[in-house]
């Protein structure tokens, strides 16, 4: 691995990696059964530098912002490197957002360049939101058909600059990325991440889960996600490892990829991990009774022998069939983006497949704690990573309080929002809004949130306020969206739901027509943003002098109600 203390920026470290590991394979891209791309670090450089030259020639300068909206593929990483080479700030956006949401973030981030894929551009270019993002000067579109009307965009493949190319240095404190942790509603949360944030996080993570040439990382989480950006791009590249991209995420092709590419690491959200668990359960259930008994014996033996630490060669021998179905080289599954239930983690560990569960948030530079597997603890999210100071503050009688973090990986703040930044980072400590407790061995355990938000099993952060615009104009006196756990704290990180609270006007009743209207509006939201219930509140909402809803007080009022009695399911 490169010694990252020698570098002051992501671009500088990647530039060195492309030289150091030139002959190693850095990227493989597969589409169903066809391998479409295989690049060495030398090939990667040969593809990225002409784009960097083109950007520079078109006026892209240090500190300029360039957004990427793409699925996981080689051109995502090539474009990102070209941006960093020119000293730019990368704005990685979620390709699953709706076009109007993407335009909103493009505007908010003040990006001047957009790099995207043709199918995404087809939708973006006709979206009414386009008119608002006048800051976008250049759009590059990959994989466009030759005769396609690109609506003012240019083909990515033709963005080949010639002549001299200057590497633009950046300092550790300069902005590397603006990462939207959520918030496409009223207040986008653009986390301003510095080069230092990434350099320090990379050192910390690879100290526990190292990469080296020959290691193959399967990139499934979207690369705009902080986890994949780190362990599916920057981490493996600075160690000379290989990243495998799949153009389709159909479960059957994901399963095949483990075997075909003999994957070493993969990052998954809990939903996918549970799907793998379900698949394995189904396979085990189909075994003849004698084989099933043998499997159970071997699993119990493996469990006993790996109690204090993983013993991969032994586990691969004992449970050969299981490990072969994952390619036989899997060292760990990194799980993140949302809370994972302990029984799922334990299921895999008992089969000899360690799951690197942890806890993190974009604002903290991805991971704060990670299970070091010495021993594996499915009931915790692990210990703080090197360089992380983690405190539990204002703890109650059971030792549970707010988790606060101080580290060189904590973001510089929220873009264009000094007020929210000041509320979130207090005296250098990031107030996570998550509730936790350290056990006697220094492992962190989580017990719910005090934020009005949910995190889905797919790793999507949804802030209640961001959903409210879908209900604007609803024929009621007032309404508000809450996370159920914000009203009725549950001390759980799973099963979180959103609720719509309505206060009807004088003489108004809750009719079927109103319910239908709410359902129709709700269905227009992306599925993971939908509310799951309605509460008809009979009192006026508490308001500030400027007529804003005082959400904590309203939540307190609602919290006194019996949730089972007041929620109308939708």
């Amino acid at each position, binding site marked *: 691995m490169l010694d990252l203390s020698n570098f002051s920026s992501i671009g500088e470290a990647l530039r060195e990696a492309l030289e150091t590991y030139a002959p190693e394979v850095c990227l493989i891209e597969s589409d169903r059964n066809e391998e479409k791309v295989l690049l060495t670090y030398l090939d990667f450089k040969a593809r990225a530098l002409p784009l960097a030259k083109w950007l520079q020639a078109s006026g892209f300068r240090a500190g300029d912002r360039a957004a990427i909206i793409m699925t996981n593929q080689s051109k995502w990483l090539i474009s990102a490197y070209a941006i960093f080479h020119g000293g730019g700030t990368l704005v990685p956006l979620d390709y*699953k957002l*709706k076009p109007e949401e993407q335009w909103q973030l493009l505007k908010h981030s003040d990006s001047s360049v957009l790099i995207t894929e043709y199918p995404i551009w087809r939708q973006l270019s006709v979206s009414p939101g386009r008119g608002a993002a006048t800051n976008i000067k250049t759009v590059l579109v990959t994989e466009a058909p030759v005769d396609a009307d690109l609506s003012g965009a240019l083909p990515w493949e033709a963005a080949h600059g010639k002549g001299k190319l200057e590497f633009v240095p950046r300092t550790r404190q300069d902005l590397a990325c603006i990462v939207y942790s959520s918030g496409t509603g009223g207040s986008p949360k653009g986390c301003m991440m510095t080069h230092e944030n990434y350099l320090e996080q990379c050192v910390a993570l690879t100290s526990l889960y190292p990469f080296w040439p020959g290691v193959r990382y399967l990139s499934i989480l979207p690369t705009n996600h902080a986890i994949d950006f780190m362990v599916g791009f920057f981490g493996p590249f600075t160690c000379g490892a290989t990243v495998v991209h799949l153009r389709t995420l*159909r479960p059957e092709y994901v399963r095949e990829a483990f075997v075909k590419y003999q994957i070493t690491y993969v990052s998954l959200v809990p939903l996918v991990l549970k799907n793998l668990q379900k698949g394995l359960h189904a396979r085990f259930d189909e075994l003849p009774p004698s084989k099933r008994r043998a499997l159970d014996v071997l699993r119990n033996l493996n469990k006993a022998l790996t109690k204090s630490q993983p013993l991969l060669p032994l586990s691969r021998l004992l449970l050969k069939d299981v490990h072969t179905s994952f390619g036989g080289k899997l060292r760990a599954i990194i799980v993140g983006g949302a809370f994972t239930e302990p029984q799922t983690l334990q299921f895999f560990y008992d089969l000899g497949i360690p799951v690197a569960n942890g806890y993190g948030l974009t604002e903290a530079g991805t991971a704060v704690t990670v299970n070091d597997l010495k021993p594996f603890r499915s009931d915790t999210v692990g210990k703080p990573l090197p360089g992380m100071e983690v405190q539990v503050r204002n703890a109650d009688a059971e030792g549970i309080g707010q988790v606060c973090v101080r580290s060189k990986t904590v973001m510089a703040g929220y873009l264009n929002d000094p007020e929210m930044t000041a509320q979130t980072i207090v005296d250098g400590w990031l107030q996570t809004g998550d509730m936790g407790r350290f056990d006697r061995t220094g492992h962190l355990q989580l017990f719910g949130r005090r934020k009005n938000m949910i995190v889905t099993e797919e790793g999507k952060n949804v802030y209640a306020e961001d959903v409210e615009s879908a209900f604007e104009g609803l024929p009621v006196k007032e309404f508000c969206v809450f996370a159920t756990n914000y009203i009725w704290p549950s001390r759980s990180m799973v099963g979180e739901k959103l609720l719509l609270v309505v206060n009807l006007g004088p003489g108004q009743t809750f009719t079927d027509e109103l319910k239908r209207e709410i359902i129709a509006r709700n269905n227009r939201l992306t599925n993971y943003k939908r509310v799951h219930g309605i509460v008809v509140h009979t009192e006026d909402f508490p308001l500030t002098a400027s007529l804003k809803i005082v959400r904590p007080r309203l939540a307190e009022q609602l919290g006194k109600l019996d949730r089972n009695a007041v929620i109308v399911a939708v």
Partner: protein
Amino acid sequence: MRTLQQTTQEILQLAAKQFKVAEGSLNPEDDFYKKLGIDSLQALELLSRIENHFHVELPDYEVQGVSDFKTLAERIQSRL
């Protein structure tokens, strides 16, 4: 060549079979996430089954944001 209506009906039958619900209980306008109680991965599994049935390939991006049978049927129909 199938009509859009035929394609839609066949998709409803495939979904009903895969998720073990009564055939007549699904309608073209239904939100399949909600009606079938499935997650995004199960939706991708259904899509694989539909692709095999119609002998077409539908890239993942084509179903981004699609949550009702009718729109899904239109996307399949455009590839037939």
